[in-house]
């Protein structure tokens, strides 16, 4: 019975819930103390407070930097500069945004500067791949019956398979995760930055909008396209494995 029921049970938290279920939330989602306390500690030169911030955000910062610059080396440089920018700027931090958002904005600004120096096109500097009006279907149209089908226009020509019937060690294998990583890597930068912050780092849509300076709607469109493409890549990978075995 429960199998046929739709499952709207807290779907909003799918990503964070799955992570919590997989053995505890990562440091990026662990609650840090109050921003004001942290800022005061930093201003006092409290090393431990700084290192708590580092362990909460460093990996996410580096991941986001890699959307803008081409090498890990440059990304590390960008993150290093970001932290120095944070320390230099902490006296001017006014709490108009959260500390986290403020740090990530410094990262984005620093990364853009580096990207321009590298002569790379900078995400969100043009509407090129963030135009919500542009046609980019989540699923190839040929997967559906044509609009003039007499019985089921626009319905699945053949229905998507159930992934939960796959052995778990395949679904969760390192090879599967490598495919996920690869699919994300191939996304246009705008989509990539949104899915990384939302679904890898578990940030809220509001945080992502603030960090990237985009609207709620644009954020959702980019997230949808990114997730749809990753799903599509996984489907191809899983189906290949099926025909092989």
């Amino acid at each position, binding site marked *: 019975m429960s199998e*046929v029921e*739709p*499952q*709207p049970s807290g*779907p*909003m938290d*799918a*990503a964070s819930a*799955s992570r919590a279920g*997989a053995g505890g939330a*990562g*440091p*990026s989602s662990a609650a840090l103390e109050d921003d004001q306390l942290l800022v005061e500690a930093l201003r006092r*030169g409290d*090393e431990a407070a*700084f*290192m708590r911030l*580092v*362990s909460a955000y*460093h*990996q996410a910062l580096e*991941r986001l930097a890699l959307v803008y610059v081409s090498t890990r080396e440059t990304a*590390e440089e960008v993150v*290093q500069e970001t*932290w*120095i920018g944070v*320390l*230099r700027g902490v006296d001017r931090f006014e709490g108009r945004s959260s500390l986290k958002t403020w740090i990530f904005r410094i990262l984005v600004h620093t990364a853009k500067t580096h990207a321009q120096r590298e002569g790379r096109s900078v995400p969100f500097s043009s509407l090129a791949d963030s135009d919500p009006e542009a046609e980019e*279907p*989540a*699923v190839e149209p040929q997967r*559906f019956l044509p609009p003039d089908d007499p019985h*089921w226009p*626009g*319905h*699945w020509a053949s*229905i*998507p*398979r*159930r*992934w*939960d019937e796959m052995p778990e060690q395949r*679904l*969760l294998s390192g090879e599967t*995760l490598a495919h*996920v990583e690869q699919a*994300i890597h191939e996304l246009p930068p705008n989509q990539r930055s949104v*899915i990384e912050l939302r*679904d*890898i*780092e*578990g940030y809220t*849509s509001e945080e992502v909008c603030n960090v990237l300076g985009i609207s709620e709607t644009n954020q*959702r469109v980019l997230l*949808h396209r990114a*997730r749809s493409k*990753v*799903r599509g890549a*996984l*489907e191809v990978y899983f189906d290949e494995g099926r025909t092989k075995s």
Partner: protein
Amino acid sequence: MTSSNSLSCIELVELVTAYLERALSPRDRVRFEEHLAICQGCRNYLDQMQQTIALVGKLAVESVPVDAQEQLLRAFRNWKSS
């Protein structure tokens, strides 16, 4: 699309993220769930999207490399003494 009140699968797949984000209007949410209730293909599709999100979440790297930590600690001490 205007001739009928119900969603087709090709329309539903474009609404999945809005559904998961609870960004659909109450009316569209009802249409979405009504379609799901009668469509195995779209239930599978929604489940695939949720599994995709869960798999993407597994890419999170938890710990900062030791050399990066040390480098930042040095930077912090420099900043402090400047």
